[in-house]
């Protein structure tokens, strides 16, 4: 049994780094789309919109209660079939190939992410003092304007630590996308490892790359949070 081949490991670094854009693409798209959908669903829950409220509860329960990898497989086999059946029913001519593995991964991760972020956003909005929206209405703003300009910015700051955790979790969860053929960091690593029979070296490099990505984003997120909190924390500096 040979030891770790450092030379081999180093040679693989540039190759595996080529997977970083895919890892980041899945992570960032899932974060942004998940946050947008999650915010909309959070409002369905807060305002208890009939039917949509119940559907949201069901949606959140299902996507938080089933493994992500199972969801990936269901989307992978299900989405092309969905397009075919839509074509059949409505006589559309959609090409099922638009559902490439990457598109499927982006959809699956976004929806999964939305299910978690719905609850994060909901609790953050509800933590904002009710008087804030009342004051917005009292100066003549509509509920929507008050939400958009006053409540959501404050809720966002409250939610930031949770959003940050979710982002770091997504970086790591994105690795599962290799199972449907995405050439992200782990996807490329698997190909290299299988070719060269150097499993340990390759996966160690992959692990270090994920770790480095997480550290970089933790630093970025900490900066964003510090900046976003100016309106709560500057008092001690200027007093």
């Amino acid at each position, binding site marked *: 049994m040979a030891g770790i081949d450092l030379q081999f490991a180093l040679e693989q670094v540039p190759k595996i780094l080529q997977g970083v854009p895919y890892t980041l693409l899945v992570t960032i798209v899932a974060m942004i789309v998940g946050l947008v959908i999650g915010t909309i669903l959070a409002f369905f829950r807060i305002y208890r919109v009939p039917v949509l409220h119940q559907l949201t509860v069901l949606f959140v329960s299902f996507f938080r209660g089933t493994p992500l990898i199972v969801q990936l497989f269901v989307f992978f086999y299900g989405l092309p079939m969905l397009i075919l059946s839509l074509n059949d029913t409505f006589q559309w001519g959609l090409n099922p190939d638009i559902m490439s593995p990457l598109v499927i991964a982006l959809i699956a991760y976004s929806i999964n992410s939305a299910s978690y972020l719905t609850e994060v956003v909901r609790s953050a909005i509800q933590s904002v*003092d009710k*008087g*804030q929206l*009342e*004051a*917005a*209405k*009292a*100066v*003549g*703003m*509509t509920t929507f*304007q008050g939400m958009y*300009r*006053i409540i959501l*910015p*404050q809720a966002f*700051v409250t939610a930031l630590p949770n959003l940050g955790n979710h982002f770091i979790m997504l970086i790591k969860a994105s690795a599962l996308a290799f199972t449907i053929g995405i050439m992200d960091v782990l996807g490329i690593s698997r190909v290299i490892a299988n070719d060269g029979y150097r499993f340990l070296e390759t996966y160690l490099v992959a692990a270090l790359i994920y770790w480095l990505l997480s550290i970089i984003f933790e630093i970025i997120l900490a900066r964003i949070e510090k900046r976003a909190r*100016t*309106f*709560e*924390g*500057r*008092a001690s500096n*200027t*007093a």
Partner: protein
Amino acid sequence: MLTVSNLHKYYGDTHVLKGIDIEVKQGEVLSIVGPSGSGKTTLLRCMNYLEKPSSGQLSINKVDIDAKHVSKKQIHTLRQQSSMVFQQYNLFKNKTALENITEGLMIAKKMPKSEAEEVAESFLKQVGLSERKQAYPNELSGGQQQRVGIARAMAMNPAVLLFDEPTSALDPEIVGDILAIIKDIAKQGMTMVIVTHEIEFARSVSDQVVFMDQGEVVEKGKPADVLVHPSHERTKRFLKRIHQEPDFII
């Protein structure tokens, strides 16, 4: 200017406002006093629809509303006739003192930014806070926050200013400053409705005083009549209790 007729409000089965009738003329100051839980704050909040009345009519500055048949648009128009100063200030926490005032002007009144800032600065000056315009609410004391709250409400140039116990959350030594500012505004001829526990202040600032208890208007009239020579037993009892409350000095 402001009329409330036969206004009722239920919370579930609890009848908290039992047919309120009130009229305030242009330039008049009306104070609403009464024990906790008498419904005075609820009544004030009904006036700009932060609470939805169960039934009754409301009219401010020729905007008439019947609580039984009211549209979102009517509510929005009604709200623009008044503005509210809150007990807990309710300044927008994510906005500076200046932005707290410009926000409503720019968003609700569609005023250009430069004009809104000019207006905001003049009102901040009036409440003596020009030098703190870039401060966030968390950086201001309670009294300063309430001054911004008053400036914000006035900047909207409402037909009626509504005050919901504006000094109840303040330290005793600040209360006088805020009351002096409110008195100043009253002298400028602003129509105002003030819910307050400060009986002495209500007596000196108001043209009309309403005493409420258990969701009803028990007595209304000139401050000297209602607060000095009340005719109803309930008013007498309330005033007696207020005057008996000792000021603790430790």
